[in-house]
């Protein structure tokens, strides 16, 4: 961990499973003896709106919200939401993993808004951050036979960066506590695919 606090934001579209991803990261940190605060958005925002989880791993108790410009890590499940979050919470010291698969908001589907050009968007973040991993996480999930496993691929990729000094086996134990049988096998496969993609 670079400082005494690691501020992580998991961002995406309601329904993409970012709450589960933040829960896995946070649980592994608690199991490893860290103090953890997670701030979530629920309710109306679940129905396809922009969603964000703030995960703060530290040696002391902190509040649920990361101050602006203070994200150390952004785990973006969707390009537009990654950019939205980066603009508010990112800085030159922020590292970003971004799933490159877009999810178009209603305004774009209705041809009223224009979705940003993804390579341009990626370059924009790259130029203003410390590091960007642009990951075809959804394709990767499909390729290992888990089309709904994008969130697990992304979680695995986060672990693969080793930004938190927590071993792979701790996360796998968390997954084993959450799932059983075939569901566990599929989630582990997606998780490991993400891990390998950035390691």
């Amino acid at each position: 961990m670079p400082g005494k606090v690691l501020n992580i934001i998991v961002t995406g579209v309601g329904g993409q499973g970012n709450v589960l991803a933040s829960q896995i990261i946070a649980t592994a940190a608690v199991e490893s003896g860290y103090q953890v605060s997670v701030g979530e958005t629920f309710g109306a925002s679940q129905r396809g709106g922009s969603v964000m989880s703030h995960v703060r791993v530290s040696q002391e108790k902190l509040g649920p919200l990361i101050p602006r410009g203070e994200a150390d890590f952004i785990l973006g499940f969707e390009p537009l939401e990654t950019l939205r979050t980066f603009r508010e919470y990112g800085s030159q010291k922020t590292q970003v993993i971004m799933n490159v698969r877009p999810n178009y908001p209603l305004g774009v589907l209705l041809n009223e808004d224009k979705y940003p050009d993804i390579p341009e968007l990626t370059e924009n973040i790259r130029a203003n951050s410390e590091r960007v991993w642009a990951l075809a996480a959804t394709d990767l999930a499909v390729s290992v036979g888990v089309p709904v496993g994008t969130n697990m691929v992304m979680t695995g990729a986060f672990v693969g960066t080793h930004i938190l000094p927590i071993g792979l086996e701790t996360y796998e134990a968390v997954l084993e506590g959450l799932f059983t049988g075939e569901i566990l096998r599929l989630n582990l496969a997606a998780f490991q695919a993400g891990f390998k993609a950035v390691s």
Partner: protein
Amino acid sequence: MEKRLLMGNEAIAWGAVEAGVAVAAAYPGTPSSEVLETLSHLAPEYGFHAEWSVNEKVALEVASGAAYTGARALAAMKQVGLNVAADPLMSLAYIGIKGGLVLVVADDPGPHSSQTEQDSRKFAAFAKLPVFDPSSPQEAKEMVKAAFVLSEEFHLPVILRPTTRTAHMAQDVAMETANLPARDYRFEKDPKWVIFPSLSYKKHILLNQAQKDLAEKFSHSPFNHLVLNPESSEGIVASGVSYNYVMEACETLGIHPSILKIGTPYPLPSQPVLDLFAHCARILVVEEQEPVVEDQLIQMAWKEEAKIEVSGKQDGRVPREGELNVDKVIAIIKAFLRQREPKDLAQPPHAWVQSTLGTMETTEAASAVEAAHEHSFELPPLPLRTPVLCAGCPHRASFYAFKEVGRRQDAVFTGDIGCYTLGTIPPLDMLDTCLCMGAGVTQAIGMSKVEPGRKHVAFIGDSTFFHSGIPGMINAVYNQADITIVILDNRTTAMTGHQPHPGLERTATGPNPKAIDIQGIVKACGVEFVREVDPYDLKAMKEAAREAMVYKGTAVVIAKRECVALVKPEVKYVVDPKACTGCELCLKKLGCPAMAKDKTLVVIQDNCSGCGICSQICPQKAIQGVSR
């Protein structure tokens, strides 16, 4: 001690289990729903009763009945739910209870998913009941246990008021042993349980006396914590979740004022405040929503003739609207420190306490704080992503049918609280009103009485129908209202996370052998025009809508189809590119998140859940279902 990652609401539930709760009752509402959600999972193992009640008034009354017998009971709701439960609450404060009664009311500054930003601490003060304001899940759990003890000591209901951020924040929480409820509770008959006016007068005297005793009791509460810095003449008082922001802001700014953390905002503990007065010339009060702590503190300064400058909401320093966060609190503290000009402390204290009142509009404060955040450079705006009805949501089909039938009639569509409030978003653009639970039906009645030539159609969800729609429907029949009521029966309470209700085959903890038939209720209430239709059958739905809107009198259409989030789709729809002319009718009329424009043609994405409405409206018959 075992530590577990718990959300604030889960920690509250565990606190109740550790306190040996015997009965827990709630109506779902963001940000409170996970309290009973968690308790319903724990109830079978720990041997207590947990229920989803039909509304918040019922929940509080159920819990109070259990508390009359000596059992510990909990009721949970969101802030606007307390408006519904206000009636029993106000009287319970007079009558009192025997076993501990804890009322969890989750406030929603922002607001994130509520109609108001009302402050339940103010409600507590209005009802003259003590209130706890947790700053973290760990503290919330400890406060629940302390609240049960306090409730039994004072024979009063005690309110625990988390805000959204505490309710939904997850932290590592130390777990303790659970206590199973006893089995030998018994209601002892006594005239003290019957609220006659003569008894109310006597009880009111006792209730007023208790305020002072509670303030004294809270002076020694571990939830109020004063850290004095003898080197500083400035102090910050913070209540609830704001305490986190204040601590982080002070660390960022590298300042060390005296800090008073308040965990019991009403009645305000006297001793730590007086100790702070003795050391400070200037005090900043940081709290979300209303100036509950601040107003009591100003009162205390006035009474004590303390020469203190008090800053907060009353001088416009701290915004009264929206949430706080670390960035806002940093801006607030910086502004507070900048105004450190020597005050003329020789003038009479009363005069200057007065001078701090109302010197600046609060909205001005809010915009000043907001301005502190603005990026120094302009960025192009990004496309917004607002919540939408899911792909295949049966409400979309119902709205579309009524829109098609009603558009030539200049009908008014009144709405209610639930996922279907999203029907107001274009292109459906269907709901003309939304006020509070149950008001869609009743407001339609009122409108119909003064706009006799116009058709009024009220939309209400199944759970909302049970919550407060039935009295409105009875009122419509009794008062001969010419309205159409559409019950959007998606077989769940969807928006808050799919809780059951009396129309379903399950309760909070198990099967429900007596699911109540909505159609049966409607008929029993004297409604003569009743149609139950599957909204996925667009032709039948439009026919029912047409007949209902022609009918003179109260007509009810039940649009019955399970929420898409609860079913696994068997079919998906595809557009035949040869047949599609790119007219975009489906796209423009339905606003379905599964449909997109690909160059000139419409395509259906993988999130299609197979409702088939697009296929039914396509003029070219270019959309067909295929099995998944």
